[in-house]
């Protein structure tokens, strides 16, 4: 395409945006709204995933030891546990410490130890696994070790947690996909309707001897501009809303794990921009296609 043609395409696209300002605004609005919702959902999904990871990482296996072990036997056991596949962390909890913890949890203001002649609790290890799915297998392996009297890992809780988190993951992934498709549908429909309302114009161009590409290109550019503007707006709004929310959460719920690093969020914003641009381009050039056959 020559210099004059490139200039023509660009001028056409801009003129058309200005001429059809109402339609253009409507299209940009639809892109913005659709991608804003999609963006919010993506961020929610990312944070849910992070939250689930934290939840899962908090899960631990309690390994109670027989009462007749000596220090070196205990240390040996600790080494064994550490090298067990799937284990990420091993912490020793002495029976004294265990009693202290229990008393704390019962309220340490009055001294229950008064009634206590002897510490009834055993020594134990707290073992964390690399992922929550590994807990049952790891627990079973640990149970076979000598010196281990009992292994508790809240089987029921883990199972429930596994099911719930899998559901949450599936649901949020499905939602993102459904919302993504909805955004594509909404945006391309608006652009198609807007092209539809200019079908006569396209016909006249063809009668003047314009090639399909000559007709299509300004529409394509226009779609790109519309899609990109909408996506940019959506990204900015999502960014602002998210910043406000994580600031608030950091104050009121410091215990929640919020994804704030830009390297994890950049793909979201980039994705929105690329999606808007692609749908805009594809939506308009495909729509034009219908009316080119004259």
């Amino acid at each position: 395409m020559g210099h004059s043609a490139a200039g023509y395409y660009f001028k056409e696209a801009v003129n058309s945006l200005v001429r059809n300002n109402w339609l253009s605004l409507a299209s940009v609005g639809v892109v913005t709204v659709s991608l804003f919702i999609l963006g919010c959902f993506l961020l929610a999904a990312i944070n849910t995933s992070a939250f689930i990871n934290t939840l899962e990482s908090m899960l631990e296996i309690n390994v109670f030891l027989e009462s007749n072990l000596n220090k070196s036997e205990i240390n040996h056991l600790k080494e064994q546990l550490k090298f067990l596949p799937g284990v990420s962390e091993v912490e020793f909890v002495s029976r004294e410490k265990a009693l202290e913890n229990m008393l704390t949890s019962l309220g340490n203001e009055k001294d229950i130890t008064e009634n206590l002649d002897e510490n009834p609790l055993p020594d134990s290890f707290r073992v964390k696994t690399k992922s929550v799915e590994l807990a049952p297998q790891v627990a079973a392996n640990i149970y076979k070790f000598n010196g281990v009297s009992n292994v508790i890992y809240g089987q029921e809780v883990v199972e429930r947690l596994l099911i719930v988190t899998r559901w949450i993951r599936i649901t949020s992934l499905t939602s993102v996909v459904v919302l993504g498709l909805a955004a594509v549908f909404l945006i391309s429909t608006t652009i198609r309707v807007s092209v539809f309302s200019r079908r006569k114009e396209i016909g006249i161009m063809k009668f003047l001897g314009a090639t399909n590409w000559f007709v299509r290109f300004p529409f394509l550019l226009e779609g790109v501009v519309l899609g990109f503007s909408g996506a940019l707006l959506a990204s900015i709004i999502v960014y602002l809303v998210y910043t406000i929310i994580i600031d608030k959460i950091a104050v009121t719920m410091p215990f929640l794990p919020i994804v704030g690093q830009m390297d994890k969020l950049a793909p979201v914003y980039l994705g929105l921009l690329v999606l808007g641009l692609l749908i805009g381009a594809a939506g308009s050039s495909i729509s034009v296609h219908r009316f080119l056959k004259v």
Partner: protein
Amino acid sequence: MCVVVRFYNVTKIYKNNSVALNNVTLHIKKGEFIFLVGPSGAGKTTLTRLIFREDLPTRGQIVFNGKNVVRLRPGEIPFHRRKIGMVFQDFRLLPQRTIYDNVAFALQVTGASNHWIKKLAPEALKVVGLEGKAKMYPEQLSGGEQQRACIARAIVNNPLLLIADEPTGNLDPGTSRELMKLFQEINGRGTTIIMATHAWDIVDSMKKRVVALSGGKVVRDEESGVYGHGA
């Protein structure tokens, strides 16, 4: 090559079974000036639409400038149309562009340079007497002015064939006379002209070839003919 347009046994039946052209055979030589006459609904517009490849004939073949119009590939159609200047009966101006842009657009689609466009478009507008209305939009023009804009657009890229469908329908006699002078001039420079018209006075005074259609058939084809009032 002497013949610009050939129709071989062309029949056009629209979807709703109305027969617009019925077995028409016709040869139009380069440089000819042809009046297409006949009552309303005779098939004049249909004939021009087939040459322009706006539609395909139901049966028969059409050859334009040595190429079979019926067998044009989609990619060839734009280039075919660029060789034909078309004055549409319903104008078909782009409503969102000024008159100047409408005329310039016919050059733009052919890839003409800006320099060339800036020279030719105003010339064409001047020829039809619209230089003062260049910046106005079609809906701001009177019917006759729109018709003249359409004519300017048709002649701006100096086509091989000029097809004018009822070009004087909205013009006063004075402007009509001037338009016919212009057409003769263009014709004199070698452009073939097909003009569908009901203006019997113009046809009678010009003494050019007259092709009369009626009910989709060629009922008369005379060199330096007349409109024929009986028709």
